[in-house]
């Protein structure tokens, strides 16, 4: 099992994600520079938070064209696990790997704080170890987390049970309180909250760790099967 943390110029949660996989999960992990084009070695890719390319133009819009993204798309199409957190989520949206787009927070401020999330589905490789309907506390830290999707798209998400996390007290104006979604194939998760910031008790909460543990469990089972 090997994790890879994608690094774009301007990524700034890359080391935090690396730390969690390495020190908390104790699993193999590597940084992957955005000019890399081969991803055969990895089982799970983490697209971390931050301000890729300074969030110029639109968050994630420029990173989406980094050389690595072709490979990420290929990796995902083959069923590899991809988790995009915050700016990583925005990159996945811009790349079309997940549906929808991000707008600025409704009050136009950057917001950094713990928020409560409801786990809407446990039927994903990322949330299987939660209980459905469980409320967990995970921090957000973003300017553009106001998720937008048109009505038809929203109906699709609902029909396919793609909404993974919703805010119990919507901080940013996101459509249908959406905090995190998966693709139809359920191997790509995008979420605005930062699980890597609450994966250790020392940091005042560890609700985020369950996402990582779900991933590890899923990858272990997959390797047993194959």
């Amino acid at each position, binding site marked *: 099992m090997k994790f890879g943390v994608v690094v774009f110029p301007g990524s*700034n*949660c890359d080391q935090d994600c690396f730390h969690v996989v390495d020190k908390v999960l104790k699993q193999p992990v590597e940084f992957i520079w955005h000019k890399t084009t081969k991803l055969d070695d990895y089982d799970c890719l983490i697209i971390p938070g931050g301000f890729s390319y300074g969030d*110029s133009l639109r968050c994630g819009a420029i990173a989406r064209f980094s050389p690595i993204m072709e490979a990420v798309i290929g990796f995902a199409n083959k069923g590899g696990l991809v988790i995009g957190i915050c700016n990583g989520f925005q990159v996945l949206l811009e790349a079309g790997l997940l549906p929808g787009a991000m707008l600025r927070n409704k009050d136009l*401020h950057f917001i950094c704080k713990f928020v409560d999330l409801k786990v809407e589905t446990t039927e994903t490789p990322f949330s299987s170890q939660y209980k459905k309907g469980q409320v967990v506390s995970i921090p957000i830290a973003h300017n553009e987390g106001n998720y937008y999707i048109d009505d038809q798209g929203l109906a699709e998400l609902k029909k396919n049970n793609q909404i993974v996390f919703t805010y119990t007290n919507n901080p940013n104006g996101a459509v249908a309180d959406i905090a995190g979604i998966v693709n139809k194939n359920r191997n790509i998760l995008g979420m605005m909250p930062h699980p890597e910031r609450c994966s250790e008790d*020392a940091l005042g909460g560890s609700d985020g760790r369950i996402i990582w543990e779900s991933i590890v469990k899923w990858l272990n089972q997959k390797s047993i099967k194959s």
Partner: protein
Amino acid sequence: MVKPEVYKELGLTDQEYQKIETIMDREPSPTELAMFSVEWSEHCGYPRSRKWLKLFPQEGKYPSLVGEDSGGIIVDDLAIVFKMESHNHPSQVEPKQGAATGVGGIIRDIFTAGAKPIASLNSLRFGPLTEPYNKFLLRGVVDGIQFYGNCLGVPTVGGEIYFDESYSGNCLVNAMSIGVCHKDQLARAKAVGVGNPIMYVGSSTGRDGIGGCSVLASHEFSEGEEKRPTVQIGDPFTEKCLIEATLEMLATGHVLGIKDMGAAGLTCSSAEMADAGGVGMEINLDDVPLREQGMEAYEIMMSESQERMLVCVKAGHEKEIEDIFAKWDLHGVVIGYVTDDKNLRVKYQGKVVADIKTEALAKGPVYDMPAEKPAYLDEVNKLDLATIPLPTNYNEVLLSLLASPSLANKAWVYEQYDHMVQTNTVVLPGSDAAVLRLKGTTKGLAATTDCNSRYCYLNPYRGAQIAVAEAARNLVCSGADPAAVTDCLNFGNPEKPDRFWYFKNCVMGIVDACRELYLPVVSGNVSFYNESPKGPINPTPSIGMIGILNDVNKHCTQYFKDEGDIIFLLGESKEELGGSEYLKVIHGQVAGEAPALGLKVEKAVQKVVYEAIGLGYINAAHDCSEGGLAVALAECCMSDQNNMIGAKITLVPGIRADAALFGESQSRIIVTCKKENLCKIEELAIENNLVCNELGVVGGDNLEIANLINLPVEQLSQTWRSAIKL
């Protein structure tokens, strides 16, 4: 000879100009004149303050690093580097970019020392929010700090904000940054080794911030050309790349010296690196990456374009360094080399445009400024408590104080800052000090900034001591042992003796307090000329302080935890109302003496609380500061939003009720503990000759104090949390 109008416009006096001619033994070129003017300015050369800054103690509990751009301490194998710097004037003009570039500048000072920036703090002062321009400033400054700091991925973990009329027309924006590295990885700000290349790295150079030198250009600029804004635009994305590239470059081991191009850009960095290394330097401006066409030599030398640094590299490794910067899409070019003649020689378009002894540039004049106590002060210091009526409704007084912007909850501000990135922040904003874990060790780092400038106005010596004492107290309440100090000294025009008297006394206050508490002052910055047409700002010697926790898990927070915990007060409440927020907000007066401070008692309080937290006796600890005991208790009840809880308090008899509730006596800490630990703490207090009074118990939904105050915590919280929302 250069016309007096020209050198005066550049800020040089007749004597200074004469001195320059003597040093040069000829008339200086325009570029040389510009270089002298910035190097000898208060901004770079500290001519008016240097004499006093030398008095700061440099020794403390940990080995200290003092002397270059930023200072620090050594803790085991780690170097912890930190510094505070002002960006007041740019922020007053363009708050967002002013604050943003302030954050950028101070963070560059940290990583040019070889340290990875791990946290930022800031200390802000504005005029009252009732004036729209002050609101605009607050909004803009906070926006600038979040814009820059969040993008860099350096958490902004703490700070302070006060509002006072004296800052209308001259806000203060002091930014502090902290970095960490292995002690062997510290970088030096000097050029060494004749023949070694000098490299320019980072962003390109434009005509930013050269407004002050425009007098040199009056004959060249064509009529009607747009006046240049003196505002620099911050580019956090480039700085983020610059951090990564710089740390990568330093890891190669080929870097001999490195310096940020901050104030006075290339002039300051080249002259000071050469001087620090005792060498000369030749640079060729034709090789400097330019962003604009047709730049003059002095413009390139003076430019304050952001996100640039100067590096001295071991000969033969230029290409390696260049490649690292290319990877991050940044410039990395050789623009000169180290020479053996101790001169700074600047060439441009085939001509030598400046040739100056580096020592003359870097070691400017030192002035002994006259100081005189302002005549009005004796009158201001008079306060007869008999003329202050006791309030009729104490509930209302408490609510008014909680709604006073200086005391109100600052979540609107710090929730706009990413304070968790890097996953080290163990105590988030909202307690006495931020606590960070130091990954790879069991240790923790606490940090705070403090200064009550009203006290400094009433009594600069004592006010500055209180700023130091309070910062240390805040660290202790978080479980840390105070370790070292940085400062940012914000004052009015130093050429006016009353302003300088304040400066001098504040410095002496810091000197004496730091000696007594055994704290070194490892870095700092001076900002003079903070005045508006209405007069000077209150003297504001902001203190930034860090402390060390041997076991980061033994940190403490200010919020009351469990129903039934015993609350008591260490230290003594005196009948003092001078300089208090209560006197200002309720009685409309700024008068009296600053609260008394006994450094021996202060030490004892801090010792007892530090030890008791370390022994695990204490559940919550909170320093009593502005607003006094009542406000501090209210904060203990409501500052953990998810777990607000009331308390029932009795007052120690003997002094006026308003002084007991809202007086700002120093050296007091509220603590709570489980019943069974009470006597252990009392024993510690007795051993240290400390007054210790049981106040009451934690519990219920209301804060009840004697029969004077009884309010639902929910209501306190509402009032306190809604006061600052723009």
